[in-house]
């Protein structure tokens, strides 16, 4: 388990970039995931765009443990590494997990809009194939690819600057 002393400047920069890049631009029917490192774990904020009534299923990465959420108890269900949220008018859902901070890239999730019938992958700005969310690795999306590239660039830069 990580603690605050393990969050080096390089890792902090990388995570900050992830927070910015994983927040996909707002679009009709989408869910953004923003991950912020906290002591010993991660804060995950799901921003709900134009889904008045729907559901989300998040799959926690291996090594992460569910800690809690600000979402109403009767709209949340946890089963193993899966967490379900019922959306009824909420615009954001925040939850916390305990675990390694580099697990931020491995969250997966799927959403459903029960009014339009659309469904998609959490973190994509367009409805898509929710089956991608069942993968244990992050979905291969422009957002994630871009995030990975930027993160690698940040690590490279910080190493060069450190020389």
């Amino acid at each position: 388990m990580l603690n605050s002393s393990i969050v080096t400047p390089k890792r902090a920069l990388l995570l900050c970039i992830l927070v910015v890049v994983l927040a996909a631009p707002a679009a009709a029917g989408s869910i953004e995931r923003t991950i912020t490192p906290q002591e010993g774990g991660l804060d995950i904020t799901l921003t709900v765009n134009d889904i008045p009534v729907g559901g989300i299923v998040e799959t926690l990465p291996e090594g992460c443990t569910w800690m809690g959420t600000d979402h109403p108890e009767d709209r949340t269900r946890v089963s193993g590494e899966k967490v379900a949220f019922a959306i009824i008018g909420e615009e954001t859902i925040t939850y916390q997990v305990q675990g390694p901070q580099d697990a931020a890239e491995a969250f997966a999730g799927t959403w459903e809009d029960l009014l339009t019938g659309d469904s998609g992958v959490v973190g994509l700005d367009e409805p898509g194939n929710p089956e991608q969310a069942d993968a244990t690795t992050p979905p291969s999306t422009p957002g994630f690819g871009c995030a990975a590239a930027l993160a690698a660039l940040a690590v490279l830069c910080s190493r060069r600057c450190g020389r």
Partner: protein
Amino acid sequence: MTRRLLLLACSLCLLAGMVAAVPCDGDGDGTLTAPELATAILDSLDARYMGGTVAAPSLTDLQDAAFVYEHWDGRALTITDTSGRTTTLTRPLNRIALFNSDAIRMMRSIGLEPDRVVGVAKYVLEDPVFYPEYQEKANLGSVWSPDYEQTASVRPDAVFLYASVSETSCADIEKTLRAIDPAIHFFRIDSFRPAVYADEVRTLGLLLGKEEEAREFLAFHEDVTGTVADVVDTIPDEDRVPVYLETWNAYKSAGMGSGYDEKVWLAGGRNIFGENPVEYPVVDPEAVISRNPAVIIKIVGAGETTFGGYDDDDLASFESVLRSIENRPVWDRIKAVRDGRVHLIHSKIIGGPDYFIGTAYLAKWFYPDLFADLDPRAIHQRYLDEFQRLDYDLDDHGTFVYPA
């Protein structure tokens, strides 16, 4: 006697059992609350994604429940249509059959998704330029010649018919289809009568879960009609421009209570045959001459004048009809003819749900000085762009009025 009562009680129980409940209303009290909906959503997600074994609602029930919660406050919706009939619904309408070909334009104005429509009147299929997204729908025939087999085959949950047009035919359709499937809901709306237009848009908005879209469309509609009304309402009745309106058949005018009579009045005119008790009377040409209208309006687009509209870019037929009216025997004595105030307008923008575009044209023709800034063509283009959601440029296509 006791057996009869028992039978009656059993029948009532069966009837009570047939009254549909709001889906996912866990306690069955008739109101779907947020906790009940949340439980249904979680049970469904649990069963489908998390390996749960709890009894979950079907996806259809869940989606219907979401609709009822979001649009109808979690309760059954009871609405009254234009015919005065009250209907109670516990689920959204997702398989709509439209015998009323005007209603489809009103529904499109409030953003109805085409995939919620399963069948349309044949006129919709005959007009691919204006209804491109409905060309693959089932052909239901018409109010006058319905295709019952086709209609039944698409299993509609709702059938829309006219309220005040062809009432006997509409009643026959309803009776026949109800015998085939008693679960079908029937709605009667007109979609073209100014007096009930706004109410019908609001009712459809509520019925179809398009309340906000209905408000936006009505704001546009009321902006146009209000602009005209603000001016014409200040004109004393005796000063209103006398108008002869002729439908697509020669000398067939509009009488008291007809839609066109109402539209002439809304635009600030006075229908010279407005006192005629026949809705669409055939009038004597001499009577037109003696009443000496200041403006003549000729409706085209059907009957003897089937031309113009969205799929016709040629104004030659308009010009020909205009000349034939001006050349009618002795009509050169009529003020409208002498002053060059004979106008042709296509039924597409005056006869149906798009009537407010037509009344804007009429108002401008009746009072060119008072409506110098009114631009009916711009209103028409905005209607097509924003509310009919059509990629159609009036600069390039279509013939609707002459002279413009």
